[in-house]
């Protein structure tokens, strides 16, 4: 793992920048991209951030922080198209591209320098192509590993290019607060502070034994992070581990209480899960149900079946049986259905006529939906659910494969 050159590319205020590019009236103004219905700010433009508008605020909080903020309902298809285009550009410089999320990726350019000269040159080329094609900017960090490349990309925003050469690593980390490292959240930061560790330098020098006693196996990893050591490879999408679950969840437009209403959404979610599983030829044996209530308390239960399935009706039936074990004392805000215990290449034609008909009907529905779009044909009871499908880009979204959820 010695002498690697890794780049981290972070699109600046991605969703907001795309919207400002698409609508010139929004350029230079404080805007906040929000979802449909009762949702929160997903991205704020730099102009809005200057007033304190942050991701995760609700619209009321954003308006308090910046009365002139303009709310823009996000168009996920613009973002997935743009992201996929940018990730494709990256592959022109190295096959080792790891998509971290819709707006972040690592590139291992160690073996690309003989063609492109230097990592800085690749960064400039990529930045200028992104700007020319999409009109938006990104910040790029170049360093000997993923941890430091991500740190470097955070150092100058927007439109930055920061290089951390190997010789500078210790100097940069010495006074750097531990919270700046990717993977150290607020909780971990608090625990480290209680141990008297404030900076990365202190973390790197801390007794390994005490770190291991406190944090277990990740103690050693933490100490290495403090020293700026990260041997994790850049993993292209085709080498990623097989997914371990297929799931969908949805925050409902308004809280619901009646069982029949809950079942309609469970059926819709089961169909989304089943359809994606069938498309990629996987089946699950365990069904998980997640329910979030009006007070934001959340419960999750699971049930394991005798056989693997990717049929929506069977997933739905399991979800109902789990639901019936829960005490629903208050209105429901969010529902989620997920299958795990996956097996790949699931193809089994049932022996009995009734079951065989169901499989054929499912397959016929899939064919229609493949041709005319999701939910072109669906179960009658979900018809009045309003807009159907995924409306949120999950952190696990990828440009291709089973993680490529078709968002609306």
């Amino acid at each position, binding site marked *: 793992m010695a002498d690697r050159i890794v780049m981290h590319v972070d699109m600046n205020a991605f969703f907001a920048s795309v919207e400002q590019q698409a*609508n*010139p*009236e929004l350029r230079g103004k404080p805007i906040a991209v929000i979802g449909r219905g009762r949702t929160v700010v997903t991205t704020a433009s730099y102009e809005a951030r200057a007033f304190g508008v942050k991701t995760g605020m609700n619209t009321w909080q954003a308006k308090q922080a910046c009365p002139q903020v303009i709310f823009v309902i996000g168009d996920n298809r613009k973002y997935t198209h743009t992201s996929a285009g940018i990730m494709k550009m990256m592959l022109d410089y190295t096959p080792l591209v790891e998509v971290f999320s819709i707006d972040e990726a690592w590139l291992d350019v160690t073996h690309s320098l003989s063609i492109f000269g230097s990592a800085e040159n690749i960064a400039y080329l990529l930045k200028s192509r992104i700007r020319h094609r999409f009109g938006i900017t990104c910040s790029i960090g170049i360093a000997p590993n993923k941890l430091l490349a991500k740190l470097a990309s955070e150092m100058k925003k927007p439109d930055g290019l920061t290089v951390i050469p190997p010789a500078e690593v210790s100097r940069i980390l010495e006074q750097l607060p531990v919270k700046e490292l990717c993977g150290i959240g607020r909780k971990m930061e608090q625990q480290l502070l209680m141990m008297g560790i404030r900076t990365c330098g202190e973390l790197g020098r801390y007794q390994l034994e005490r770190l291991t006693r406190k944090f277990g196996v990740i103690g050693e990893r933490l100490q290495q992070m403090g020293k700026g050591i990260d041997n994790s490879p850049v993993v292209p999408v085709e080498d990623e581990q097989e997914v371990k679950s297929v799931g969908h969840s949805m925050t409902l437009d308004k809280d619901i209480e009646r069982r029949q209403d809950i079942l309609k959404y469970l059926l819709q979610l089961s169909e989304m899960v089943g359809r994606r599983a069938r498309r990629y030829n996987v089946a699950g044996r365990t069904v998980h149900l997640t329910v979030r209530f009006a007070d934001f308390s959340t419960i999750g239960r699971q049930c394991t079946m005798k056989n693997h399935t990717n049929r929506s009706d069977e997933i739905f039936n399991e979800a109902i049986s789990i639901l019936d074990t829960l005490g629903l004392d208050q209105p429901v805000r969010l529902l989620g259905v997920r299958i795990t215990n996956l097996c790949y290449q699931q193809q089994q034609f049932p022996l009995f006529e009734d079951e065989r008909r169901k499989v054929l009907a499912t397959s016929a529905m899939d064919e229609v939906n493949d041709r005319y779009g999701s939910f072109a044909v669906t179960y009658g009871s979900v018809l009045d659910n309003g807009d159907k499908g995924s409306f949120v880009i999950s952190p696990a979204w990828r440009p291709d494969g089973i993680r490529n959820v078709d968002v609306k």
Partner: protein
Amino acid sequence: MQIKELIRVAVVFGPGRAIRPVWFDWHNRKHAVLETTYTWSDLKGSARRLHFAVRDDGGLYELTYDTSEQTWELTGLEGN
């Protein structure tokens, strides 16, 4: 504002795979496209749809070309 109206659009195809809307008819008026501000595509079922955010002298519009049906739709409107 989301709308969904089949419209008549004049388009320059090329060079290469480029597609550039030049004007469109809507509400008995010919709207000259001053700028295409953004383009993106998506799939509806098996049909690829190309979206164009375009600006005329009065507002911003979203035009959508369904490559399967070969139809143009006005699908969005802002600032009118």
